[in-house]
């Protein structure tokens, strides 16, 4: 790796992040470069692979809108970080703090006194003509005068080495979570360097964000108490309820939202999990409604309340604005903040900065013309070749158009468009932004110089804004080096701020935790979360059983001659049809059966194992923040395996896939048993697991009982995971009485019917203790007594009517139990319909 620098040509029209004008690496890059140069190519390749593996194992994804199958597009993370020295960073930090402060002032003004409009420092058109100006928000009050809680800004470096602002993100800035995940992966990749370079840590930023939101949450809790005397004050150490509002799993950054929810410890909720009553916002939990104090939203302004904004939005919370008006909930960022996410504003910021902060704007914006001003429009038309045309407001969905790309015809069309609705467009100078080394494996492994932009994050605290020391660096995709967006294919980088000294990263607000602050039990389980956990439990077991059943069937078919298997095979086949894995009519040849079994494993049909695993993955995706990283990785890997299957798997490969699926599902069971906190959510998941296993056992035993009398029972023991226990106890060939005793009655056996029922009784009684009696406890207890009172010697035999009747009855009860759980605990999450008159 000696020729690293030769790979980066020095270009004068771009600022080179790595090399100075003499072609030497800049001081803050030397250590990384030296370390890379001393390594072999293989070591670097290992590092590249490690990053790729981590991204895939962590399930880091970015959804592309309008493409449901693109749900799992992997996040692109470059192995080479983007590095800035602290001295330079401090200037960026100060400028971003200033800009966030300024934008907050503007937001307060536009939704308040409107002095900017009265003084003519802001054209009224940018407010009244902006679809993001939400009239119901005019006159709102904000805790500590903070309306812009989270802010991000896209900056880039001009050829002269100065940083420029390209765009502001003021509504629900995305990417801070990705930046944190990038850091976690890249820090592992360069453990020694990372320590030696004193790279500034990111965790303090998130601690500040959490503690500041808690601070405002507490202020809000006080207001709630004044509003309604029946509301108890937060007890000492009790945290206010802060939720992250997501548009749902199809949103492009859902992965980040669930990651942040887990990291910050805030429940991730959808609009339908919340409701407005008595002027307050409540979270629908299984133990009733819980007052919400802060909503950290990832939902666009105008989707947040169908009563005030878009009436057809089903993602929002009807009546939310009523609560906001009364200061009974904090929305971060405040409703209406999308207004500032407009390139048209950029040109007015220098004057506004003087007006509000009495100082010059520290970081300039890329030269921007808002076509709504006739003079600007004239200039734009005359200089189209050197400009990029962008929509002025986020509501207008148009890609940037580069003037230099247009032929005469397209040019005329664009000018016509600009003249018709000039206020909808801005033009920006086309800047040659700086280039930074990026790893590429295309052709041969090497460093490339790629255009880079940096997204920097700030969050409000009661003492002013703090800036994340780092950020999300993004390099342009291959197709168009002038456009930097993850939506259109680009790569991200970890950003290192190297420091002379080690700096402790800490929150400005947090005091140390005392024993009074300890929290036991998560009281904020939303009904939707509990429903998801229940079905997650059921599907985990069901898929484990399907895998096991398919593996057993395949073995039967391949390892036992037709003459011998003829007694048991119809029963096993019948079980396959029960799960819709095989057609009802048994195929006439073994070849045909084998073909159908492979289809049952791999095909895209709804009932195949492969489809079931993908559905299971989506279930897990919805629970992402509740699962440990290793748990999540196991699910993710399994799903990846089945997505990447080649066209015609051989029989051996099919066995391998099934083995792997069976193993993964037992690992998932292990995570569920040992790694998850046994709160109420866990109980619901366990109920799901037990119901599913109980139904499977009832059904399987019932089928087995109808086999010919001399049938071999080995398969039954294998399928129900009881073969090892049985062989340890009895050396002889399996017989009906001991087999049925083991599978039905043995309460120490986790694969026995009794074990499922006792578990169900236990969990349901615990739920009843909190949520008032749930009658199924008694039904299940009666079921168990009935089983125990069956005369074993008389009834534990082949074709036993008593047993078959009991199994059918138990199955029905388990179905009713499932329905009742849905009605009682999950039905909160209906969707509503809009009306007009």
């Amino acid at each position, binding site marked *: 790796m000696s020729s690293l620098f030769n790979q980066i040509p020095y270009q004068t029209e771009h600022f080179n992040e790595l090399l100075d004008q003499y072609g030497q690496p800049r001081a803050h890059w030397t250590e990384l470069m030296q370390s890379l140069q001393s390594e072999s190519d293989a070591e670097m390749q290992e590092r590249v692979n490690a990053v790729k593996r981590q991204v895939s194992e962590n399930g880091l994804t970015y959804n592309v809108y309008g493409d449901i199958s693109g749900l799992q597009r992997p996040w692109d993370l470059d192995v080479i970080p983007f590095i800035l020295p602290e001295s330079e960073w401090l200037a960026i930090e100060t400028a971003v703090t200033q800009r966030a402060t300024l934008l907050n002032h503007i937001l307060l003004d536009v939704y308040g006194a409107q002095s900017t409009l009265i003084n*003519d420092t802001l054209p009224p058109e940018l407010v*009244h*003509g902006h679809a993001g100006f939400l009239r119901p928000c005019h006159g709102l009050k904000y805790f500590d005068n903070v309306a812009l809680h989270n802010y991000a800004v896209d900056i880039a470096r001009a050829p002269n080495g100065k940083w420029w602002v390209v765009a502001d993100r003021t509504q629900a800035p995305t990417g801070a979570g990705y930046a944190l995940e990038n850091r976690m992966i890249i820090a592992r990749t360069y453990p020694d360097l990372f320590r030696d370079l004193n790279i500034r840590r990111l965790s303090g930023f998130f601690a500040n964000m959490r503690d500041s939101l808690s601070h405002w949450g507490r202020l809000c809790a006080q207001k709630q108490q004044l509003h309604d005397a029946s509301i108890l004050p937060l007890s000492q150490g009790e945290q206010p309820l802060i939720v992250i509002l997501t548009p749902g799993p199809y949103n492009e950054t859902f992965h980040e939202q669930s990651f942040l929810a887990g990291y910050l410890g805030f429940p991730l909720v959808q609009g339908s999990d919340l*409701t*407005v009553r008595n002027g307050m916002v409540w979270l629908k939990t299984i133990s009733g409604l819980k007052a919400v104090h802060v909503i950290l939203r990832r939902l666009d302004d105008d989707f947040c309340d169908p009563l005030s904004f878009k009436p057809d939005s089903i993602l929002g919370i009807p009546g939310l604005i009523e609560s906001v*008006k009364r200061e009974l909930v904090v929305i971060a960022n405040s409703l209406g903040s999308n207004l500032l996410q407009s390139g048209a504003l950029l040109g007015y910021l220098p004057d506004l900065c003087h007006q509000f902060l009495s100082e010059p704007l520290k970081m300039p914006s890329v030269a921007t013309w808002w076509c709504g001003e006739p003079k600007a429009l004239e200039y734009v038309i005359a200089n189209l070749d050197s400009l990029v045309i962008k929509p002025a407001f986020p509501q207008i969905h148009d890609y940037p158009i580069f003037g230099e790309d247009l032929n005469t015809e397209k040019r005329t069309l664009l000018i016509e468009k600009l003249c018709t609705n000039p206020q909808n467009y801005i033009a920006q100078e086309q800047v040659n932004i700086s280039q930074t080394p990026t790893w590429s494996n295309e052709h041969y492994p090497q460093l490339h110089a790629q255009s880079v932009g940096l997204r920097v994050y700030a969050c409000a605290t009661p003492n002013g804004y703090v800036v994340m020391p780092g950020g999300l660096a993004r390099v342009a995709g291959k197709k168009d080096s002038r456009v930097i967006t993850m939506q259109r294919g680009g790569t991200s980088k970890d950003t290192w701020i190297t420091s002379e000294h080690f700096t402790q990263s800490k929150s400005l607000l947090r005091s140390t935790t005392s024993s009074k602050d300890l929290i036991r039990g998560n009281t904020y389980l939303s009904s939707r979360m509990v429903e998801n956990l229940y079905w997650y439990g059921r599907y985990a077991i069901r898929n484990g059983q399907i895998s096991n059943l398919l593996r057993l069937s395949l073995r039967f078919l391949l390892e036992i001659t037709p003459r011998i298997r003829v007694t048991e095979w119809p029963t096993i086949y019948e079980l396959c049809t029960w799960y819709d894995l095989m057609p009802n009519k048994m195929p006439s040849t073994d070849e045909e059966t084998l073909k159908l079994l492979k289809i049952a494993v791999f095909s895209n049909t709804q009932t195949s194992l492969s489809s079931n695993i993908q559905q299971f993955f989506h279930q897990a995706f919805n629970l992402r923040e509740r699962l440990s990283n290793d748990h999540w990785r196991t699910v993710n890997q399994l799903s990846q395996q089945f997505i990447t299957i080649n066209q015609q798997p051989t029989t051996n490969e099919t066995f391998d896939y099934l083995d792997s699926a069976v193993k993964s599902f037992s690992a998932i069971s292990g995570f569920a048993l040992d790694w998850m906190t046994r709160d109420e959510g866990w109980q619901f998941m366990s109920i799901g697991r037990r119901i599913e296993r109980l139904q499977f056992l009832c059904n399987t035993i019932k089928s087995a009982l109808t086999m010919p009398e001399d049938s071999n029972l080995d398969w039954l023991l294998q399928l129900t995971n009881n073969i090892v226990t049985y062989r340890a106890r009895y050396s002889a060939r399996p017989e009906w009485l001991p087999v049925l005793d083991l599978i039905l009655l043995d309460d120490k056996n986790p694969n026995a019917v009794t074990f499922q029922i006792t578990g169900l009784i236990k969990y349901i009684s615990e739920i009843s203790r909190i949520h008032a009696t749930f009658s199924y406890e008694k039904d299940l207890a009666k079921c168990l007594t009935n089983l125990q009172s069956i005369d074993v010697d008389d009834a534990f035999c082949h074709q036993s009517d008593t047993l078959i009747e009991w199994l059918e009855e138990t199955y029905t009860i388990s179905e009713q139990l499932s329905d009742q759980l849905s009605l009682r605990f999950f039905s909160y999450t*209906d969707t509503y*319909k809009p*009306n007009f*008159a």
Partner: protein
Amino acid sequence: MLYTVHHQTEYIYSTSVTLSQQVLHLTPRHTLHQACENHRLNIDPMPAEHLKDQDFFGNTSDYFSIFNPHQKLIVTSAFRVSLQSRLSLSNLQDSLAWEQVKSHIKSAPYNQNDAVIYLYSSPHVKCSTALAHYALISFTPGRPLIEATFDLTQRIYQEFEFDAEATEVSTPLEQVLFDKRGVCQDFAHLMIGCLRSLGLSCRYVSGYILTNPPEGAQRLIGADASHAWVSVYCPTYGWVDFDPTNSCIVNNEHITVAWGRDFSDISPMHGIALGGGEQTLNVSVTVTPEALINA
């Protein structure tokens, strides 16, 4: 003129609604030409909470929610109102040329100029060149604003057909312009779009109108409906109301309830219901001249 107004909105649901949250714009405004008394709002079933507010445009709005299961929701609004005559067309001869009005609005100080609020596209009214072209036939160079606007009012009345089946709340303006049919709400939106596309300020007014019964026929209870028209900003006379559905300048037969940028700002009643299955909506409006009541 004195009138009593009775406006009832009734929803019938096929299954129970477990949560209903509604916003109303049913309280009539007080204006130069209109004085209201004794406004009563009745909501059945009784809401768990009911809040009154003033919206951005100065209208009174009501927010209420019902948590008890119900299969029927009835909202009744009733009031008495006296209307003063407004300036008639012959008294509105001194308006500026429409191009001058345009620049006047741009240059007027912001805090004395509510015209600026109604200049731009809004959810139901998207400005376009097509609308501007349609308007320009009436807005010939130098023509006084009121005269041009009245001409446009008459053209819409003559060229468009009233057809309650042709459109819905969501029908876009281009289609109304193309099909040349719709209801009062569409004509109001169309006219607003025409004026705003020329750079003029125009607002949407909702309210009631006294429908004149045919000669000799009995007044039908409930035959009248909730109505909509437009109001144009004219520096000389302030806001002047035109009714394209009836081809007239508003005088003393229009009762104003609320105004905003378009229907979406001030729909009489909108909200959400959880559950409910199929819903049936019945609206009835009765505007009775006081003379008839006394008779």
